[in-house]
C-alpha cells in the first residue's frame, strides 16, 4: 500500500509545488491588504452601512487581523487552491481511474479495495495539509513582515490548522464518496463541486444578506472560524460538526467501494 501512497504523492508533487508557491504568495498578501486597507475600509464602513455589510465576507472581515486571516482562507482564491486536491483530485481518484481503465490493472494486484481508497485518500490529504499549511504559514510570515505578529495568537495556530484541515477533510471525504459511486469522472467531479459550491453559497449569502444569516449554519464553511480561534473563542461544536462531516462520507465510501460491482470499462 505504501507504493500506491508514494506513487499518488509523486503524481501530485508538481501540482503541490506550483499551487504551494501560489498559496504562499496569497498568504503573504493577506496581512499586507490588512495593513494597507483596514483603516480606510473601517472609516468607509462607519459612514456607509452597505460597505459595512459587504465587508463581512463569509465569516471574515478586514477589520481585525484574525478576521482578515479568516477572509483570506475563505476567499475563492484560497478555496480554489485547496479544492484542486480536496475536491478535484479526490473526486477523480477512483472514478477517473475507472474511466481511464487503469483501475483494472491496479485492482489486479493483491490490494484490498479499501486499502486502495485509504492510501489514495492519505496521499491527497497530505497534499491538502501541504497547501493549507503553506497558506497559513504564508499569512503568519506576512503578518511578521507587516509587524503584526503580536496581534496574532500564534499559540492558537495549531487549532486553526486543525479546524481548517477538518473542513477540507470533509470535502475530501465527500469527493471520495462521490468518486467510488460513479464509473465516470464527470458526475463525480460535478457532484463534488456542487457540494463545495452550495456550502460556499450558503455561507456567503448568509454573511451578505442579514435575513438569510440562518443559512450559514448549514454551511461547512461556517464551522471554520480561524478568527474566533485566534481570538481565543474556539467552539468545540464546530470541530465536532466538521469531524462528523468527515466521518459520514468516508464511512459511506469505505462501505460502498468494496461492495460495488466493477463491470468492464466501456
Amino acid at each position, binding site marked *: 500500500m505504501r*507504493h*500506491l501512497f508514494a*506513487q499518488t504523492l509523486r*503524481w501530485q508533487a508538481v501540482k503541490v509545488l506550483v499551487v504551494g508557491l501560489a498559496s504562499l504568495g496569497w498568504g503573504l498578501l493577506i496581512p499586507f491588504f490588512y495593513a494597507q486597507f483596514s483603516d480606510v475600509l473601517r472609516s468607509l464602513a462607519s459612514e456607509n452601512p452597505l460597505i459595512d455589510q459587504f465587508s463581512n465576507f463569509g465569516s471574515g472581515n478586514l477589520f481585525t487581523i484574525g478576521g482578515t486571516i479568516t477572509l483570506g482562507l475563505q476567499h475563492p482564491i484560497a478555496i480554489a487552491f485547496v479544492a484542486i486536491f480536496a475536491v478535484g483530485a479526490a473526486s477523480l481518484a477512483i472514478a477517473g481511474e475507472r474511466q*481511464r*481503465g*487503469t483501475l*483494472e*490493472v*491496479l*485492482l*489486479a*494486484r*493483491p*490490494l*484490498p479495495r479499501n486499502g486502495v481508497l485509504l492510501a489514495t485518500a492519505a496521499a491527497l490529504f497530505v497534499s491538502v495539509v501541504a497547501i493549507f499549511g503553506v497558506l497559513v504559514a504564508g499569512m503568519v510570515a506576512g503578518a511578521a513582515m507587516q509587524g503584526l505578529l503580536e496581534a496574532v495568537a500564534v499559540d492558537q495556530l495549531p487549532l486553526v490548522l486543525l479546524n481548517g484541515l477538518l473542513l477540507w477533510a470533509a470535502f475530501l471525504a465527500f469527493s471520495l464518496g462521490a468518486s467510488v459511486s460513479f464509473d465516470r469522472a464527470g458526475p463525480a467531479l460535478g457532484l463534488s463541486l456542487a457540494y463545495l459550491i452550495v456550502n460556499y453559497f450558503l455561507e456567503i449569502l448568509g454573511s451578505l444578506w442579514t435575513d438569510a444569516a440562518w443559512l450559514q449554519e448549514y454551511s461547512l464553511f461556517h464551522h471554520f472560524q480561524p478568527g474566533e480561534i485566534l481570538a481565543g473563542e474556539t467552539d468545540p461544536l464546530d470541530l465536532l460538526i466538521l469531524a462528523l462531516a468527515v466521518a459520514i462520507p468516508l464511512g459511506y465510501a469505505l462501505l460502498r467501494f468494496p*461492495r460495488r*460491482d*466493477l*463491470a*468492464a*470499462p466501456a
Partner: protein
Amino acid sequence: MDDAAPIISTLGLTKRYGRVAALTDLTLEVRRGEIFGFLGPNGAGKSTMIRVLLGYLHATAGSASVFGLDTERESVEIRRRCGYLPGGIALYDAQSGRDALDYLADLQGASPVRREALAERLQMSDATLRRRVRDYSRGMRQKIGVIQALQHDPQLAILDEPTEGLDPLMQHAFYAILDDLRREGRTIFFSSHVLPEVERVCDRVAIIRDGRLLALQHVGELLAHRRRRIMLRWRGTAPDLRGVPGIADVEQDGSTLRATLEGDVVPFVRAVASPSLEDLTIEPASLEEVFLDYYADEAAPPSAAGGTRVPPPKAVE
C-alpha cells in the same frame, strides 16, 4: 493445495444485472497445468466470468473458487497468486514502460523474475521500455500488458483477449511463451474469440453463449466429432456413398461428389478406395466450424461425444 484439485472451480455461477443475466448457472473446472480456452463472441460473458474470478464483480448466485479460495472473501490472496491481463489494457500514460512495470511489480509484492525474458521475446528493448507509455502503439501497450501479467511468474495467468493488437510475429512469440508456461506447469485461463489461436494453444475449451455454458471439451475431442467437408472426383460415375457410416449431405454433379463426413474416416476410405478415384479432398475440421455450429443453430447445438453438454440457452435480454 492438493495437486489434483482444480485451480478454478465454479458451481452454478450466476451473475445478473437487474433482469439481465450475464452468466447463468455456469459450472466448470480448470485443471492445474492446462491452457484453458474460454470462447464466446463479444458480450457472451467471458469478461464477466473473469471479473467474478478476480473479485471485481460479486456473484448473484452460485460460487467460484480459485486455488480453493473463495472469490468473494479471499480475492486479495487469489490476486497475489495470479497474473491478469485485462482486455484493452490501460496504463498510466505519464510513466515509462519500465516505470509502469516496476510500479505494478511493487504493488504485486513479488519480484519480476520473468520480465527480462518476456521483454526479450516480445522485442521490448531497453530503449523502448524507457519511452513513455503515451508514445506506445497499441501493440506495444499490449506487450507491456502481457509482461505485467506474467513478470512475477504467477501460478495462474488469466488473459483476456491477449493477442489483441499484436502483429502475427508477436502472436507467435506469445504462443511460444504460453507453450513454455505450460511445460513449466503453469495454468492459463485464456479468453478469446480468435478461434485459430484457441485451437493452436488450448488444451480444453469452454464455449459460452449468452452467459450459459454450451460445451466443455478437449479441443481434439471437439474437432474429432465435427463434420468435415469432403469432395471427390471420379473417372466415370461416382459411387453411391449414401450407405457409408458418417456420410451425409451428399451432392453429386456428374463425376464430382460433395458430402460431409462425421466420425471415423475408415469406412469412407474403404468405400472410395478404387483405381477410378481421381482426386480426394477432406477439409480439416476447425474450431471455427464447431463454434459457428453452436452459434448458428440455437435450437439444436450439434452433438459431440464426451465433455459437458448443456441444453441450448434461452434469450436472456
